[in-house]
């Protein structure tokens, strides 16, 4: 079976500044795959290429075998990929419910909105309680949940999470990861970018290490967890 997502030799740049050289990896249906790497290694850039926010200079991105790297961002969402951006980027002056509803903006997902909403509320009961509250007034953890919930509203096949643990207290990080696991169990494939290496690898099935715009290592989570190079890269030991 073809992998759900195949990234093949993509290269990208911001203006004249090259950010990705030659990145290839794949994600199988049902997996949680994590992209590891230091700041500036190109993790977010890779995500932006996949979600169509940044046009690659070369290479291909395929979803279920279909090339998507030339599609505009909204079409990529429609095809089943959603990115939960770093820093959540909610609409602070809109209610929780409105944020969620807009997650199902595309006509395809609009039709199933009520059902999806029930599902999201079952995953995040706290959001259900606060549905009328403005997103800007939620706590950090709640905001992260809302961001994930908003992403789920489009019923994605692939959920891309960019640093979901950023700025959250450890207990909340745990909670968020717990939910990611649950979402995955319900059939959503997950691509996770994390700084929190150990937790990411606890959660993921496989991982890739990105260094200065190139994939330098890959393996199962267990392999990477044992890899001394990972420790070296992160702690300089």
């Amino acid at each position: 079976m073809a992998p759900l997502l195949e990234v093949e030799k993509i290269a990208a740049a911001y203006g004249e500044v090259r950010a990705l050289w030659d990145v290839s990896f794949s994600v199988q249906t049902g997996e949680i795959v994590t992209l590891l790497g230091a700041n500036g290694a190109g993790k977010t850039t890779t995500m932006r290429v996949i979600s169509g926010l940044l046009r690659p200079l070369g290479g291909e991105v395929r979803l279920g075998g279909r090339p998507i790297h030339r599609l505009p961002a909204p079409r990529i969402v429609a095809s089943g990929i959603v990115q939960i951006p770093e820093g959540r980027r909610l609409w602070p002056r809109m209610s929780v419910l409105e944020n969620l509803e807009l997650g199902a903006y595309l006509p395809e997902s609009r039709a199933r909105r009520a059902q999806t909403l029930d599902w999201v509320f079952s995953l995040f009961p706290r959001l259900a309680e606060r549905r009328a509250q403005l997103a800007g007034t939620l706590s950090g953890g709640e905001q992260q949940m809302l961001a994930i919930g908003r992403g789920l509203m489009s019923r994605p096949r692939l959920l891309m999470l960019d640093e979901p643990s950023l700025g959250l207290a450890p207990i909340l990080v745990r909670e968020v990861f717990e939910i990611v696991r649950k979402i995955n169990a319900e059939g959503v494939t997950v691509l996770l970018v994390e700084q929190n290496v150990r937790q990411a690898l606890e959660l993921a099935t496989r991982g890739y290490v990105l260094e200065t715009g190139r994939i330098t290592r890959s393996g199962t989570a267990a392999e990477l967890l044992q890899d001394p190079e990972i420790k070296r890269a992160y702690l300089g030991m």
Partner: protein
Amino acid sequence: MLTAPNLISVGIAALLTAGLYAVMSYGLAIIYGVMKVINLSHAGFLMLGAFMTLVYFQRWHLDPLLGALLNLPVFFAAGWVLYAVLVRRVMTSLPIASLLLLFALWLVLQNVALAIWGSEDQSIITAYTYKALPVLGFRIPLTRLLVFGVALATLGVLHFVLGHTYVGKALRATVQDPQAGVLVGIDTERISAVAFGLGTAFAAFAGSLLTLLFSFTPDFGGPFQLKSFTIIVLGGLENFAGVTVGAAILSFVESYAVLFMKASLQNVIAYALLVVALIVMPGGVAQLWTRSRS
């Protein structure tokens, strides 16, 4: 002269004016919110809206209120087209470029109108132009009341559209964070077109309502545009609900201030409020009670 009934009737007049002010500023606020550009052609569309109302009125004896409604789709389309062929092209360059482009557009609109209708004062008289309703012992001009009512109704509709339709929500979302919009599949380019269309439509709509109260020429619109700036700045620029508050503040301050100063200084109030509001409360009046957000 500061008798109680006098103060009250000034208050009523101010309230009625506030409705008009709000309607005439909404278009500016929507365009600013989504595109972050001050629409200097706003006055042009106010004026053109008024002239189109005149055309409907003369050709088909269409009441200005109906003319206002007809203007909505007509100018929505016009705004959309203008966005697509003109405005879109400068949105990516300097902010000043879009500002000046819209200024140039105003110049063009003004002079096209001049070529078509000449510079004479035009006005529309309807059966109810001079009618008035007694309310609690105060005489309220029917046109003002109508304009106020229509303004309220439109604001209601607008709030409904912004709050309860997908396009409206997408529009608000784009105002707050366009990038996040892209991530859920909102086509920001299209939303910008919608915003420019809506902004234009509302300007023209307000222009139609103005014909019930004022005579107009191709030069008409300038002072209203400056007042609209003041209103949306007072309202907080990105806060649609703030527009109504801004309109009320300007209208009340203007109306009552004239009791204490030369009437010929009336416009200074709007200009001074504009500058002071920008400097002292860049977040608009709303920031006074939503300080908490950092």
